């Protein structure tokens, strides 16, 4: 969906992120393969396991939309070139909005 999605090497730790189809909320795949809207629960995967998990995510199209790899540290923290974008996806706009603006 986004125009910039860097290719990550197999050994680079990556989380799987997507949008919850019904609401559009950002979600991340947990260690046990469920989805959470809390980025701190994002699991880090590498190599063939990561590919397999992404393939699983694509099979859950009713529940989630457009899953993709997001670069993370070994403990699942956001890192890499898309840090700003992925941080905003995870924590919302960096500016106040609505009645609190």
């Amino acid at each position, binding site marked *: 969906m986004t125009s910039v999605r860097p290719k990550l090497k197999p050994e680079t730790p990556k989380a799987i992120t997507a949008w919850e189809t019904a*609401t559009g909320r950002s979600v991340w795949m947990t260690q046990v393969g469920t989805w959470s809207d809390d980025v701190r629960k994002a699991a880090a995967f590498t190599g063939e396991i990561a590919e397999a998990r992404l393939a699983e995510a694509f099979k859950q199209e009713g*529940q989630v939309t*457009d899953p993709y790899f997001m670069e993370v540290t070994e403990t699942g923290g956001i890192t890499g070139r898309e840090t700003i974008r992925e941080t905003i996806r995870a924590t919302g706009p960096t*500016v106040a909005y*609505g009645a609190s603006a």
Partner: protein
Amino acid sequence: MYRYDEFDARLVKDRVDQFRGQVNRRLSGELLEDEFKPLRLQNGVYLQLHAYMLRVAIPYGQLNGAKLRGLAEVARDYDRGYGHFTTRQNIQYNWVALKDIPDVLEKLAGVELHAIQTSGNCIRNVTSDHFAGAAFDELMDPRPWCEIIRQWSTFHPEFAFLPRKFKIAVTAAEHDRAAIAVHDIGLRILKRGDVVGFEVHVGGGQGRTPHLAALVKDFVPEAELLDYLEAIMRVYNRYGRRDNKYKARIKILVNELGTEEFTAQVDAEYAAQKGHEKIDLPQAEIDRINAYFAPPAFDADTGSETFEAAKAADPAFAEWAEVNLHKHKQAGHASVTVSLKPIGGAAGDATDAQMLVVADLAERYGYDDIRVSHAQNLVLPHVPVKHLYAIWQALDAAGIATANESLITDLIVCPGLDYCNLANARSIPVGQALQKVFADPKYQREIGRLHINISGCINACGHHHVGHIGILGVDRKGEEFYQISLGGRADEKAAIGDIAGPALKGEDVPQAVKRIVDTYMALRTSPDELFIDTLARTGAEPFKEAVYATA
């Protein structure tokens, strides 16, 4: 204002029902995203950074109290209590859930609004002068023609799958407030003797390859307008570059063929349209549409003493009245700009409560007429001046009485990386930081009219190419940088700004702009010489130097 007839109402209702079925099939997993995406886009639904975004069409920016109240209720009941008014005179909701969108659209249909053709490669919302029907300098009201074009282009089967999106703007005033030079087709209404007609400009646009529109025809009589537009669309539909998304807009075709050849092709197509293909637009139909836009029964009591007394008594009101009023064609009336640019806010955002305040004011004092401007403000086009003080007090209490219309803090700003999936950099925080530098109202008025436009990516939704000062967010290996351009303008002297030089870090932008403004203040021959005129007179060099000067 145009009111739906039974066919319009049916069309919109059928579309809501159809989309409800499509959403249900998506939620059940029966439709995959790849299949659903073109369907949702046809209904104005985008998938943005952290939510769906719903774009609702506001034809030529025209609202009334009931419509704005409907928009407010959607913001309150289905979003997070606000909406974002756009440079296309539309509104976008940032947080609406897909499962709720059919209900939202059904609710909006009840106030004659919809999201049809707000995305996709079709003819989008026709935009116009936000002071249409009110401005002292207009030849006639352009809205009836916007409405005629809207009806012609809605669900036009031949133009449902164009090479790329297509935007039309119409103006009828001497001063172009509709930015016709940066639209795929820009129309200026003229009169030759008693015949109303159109000057037709084609191939303008911003984005990664900005172009000013070329004058293709200096006069198309009104009865022939739709046939002529159809000829343009057919040439584009046939020869527009479908092979390359970045070359698919009509501006590329016009530029590659040259204006003369493009015009020749349009004329040939126009001549080849057979008698039975001509669109029958009888005068009776033009008159029928015109009748919807008859001026209100203006209050004959000018009430100017009340207005003058209030200004004398309340300096804050006087300041606002000096900046945010536009001269009306009717004595004792003014057009009011309701600024959606409070210092430190997000340009174009309005809360549900603010929308309700404006809806109430329009109904109570403003002949039930409201507009959205392409500069992302709201407008009460017709207001008796005797009511201005009451209006100002209500706006001020709601936080939407900033006295900055067309001043340096009246920024055009796209949502940027805080919301948008295409953005490379944030726009809103840069705008907020700039506003803080220039927050002093007196200082802003001293500077005078100066347009700063900010886009978070090359797609230019923030119109940075035509800002007197343009700011474009770019990505440099994961860091946000900003490129400054100088000398753009969107009016009748339209120009694309020139890039000043290498991009700056976000934190350096406010002071760079401050140095540009300091340079202008030092160089201008008098306070009446606007920034853009000083720049034209001196050339860009002193300003470019200012951008990169270090203390």
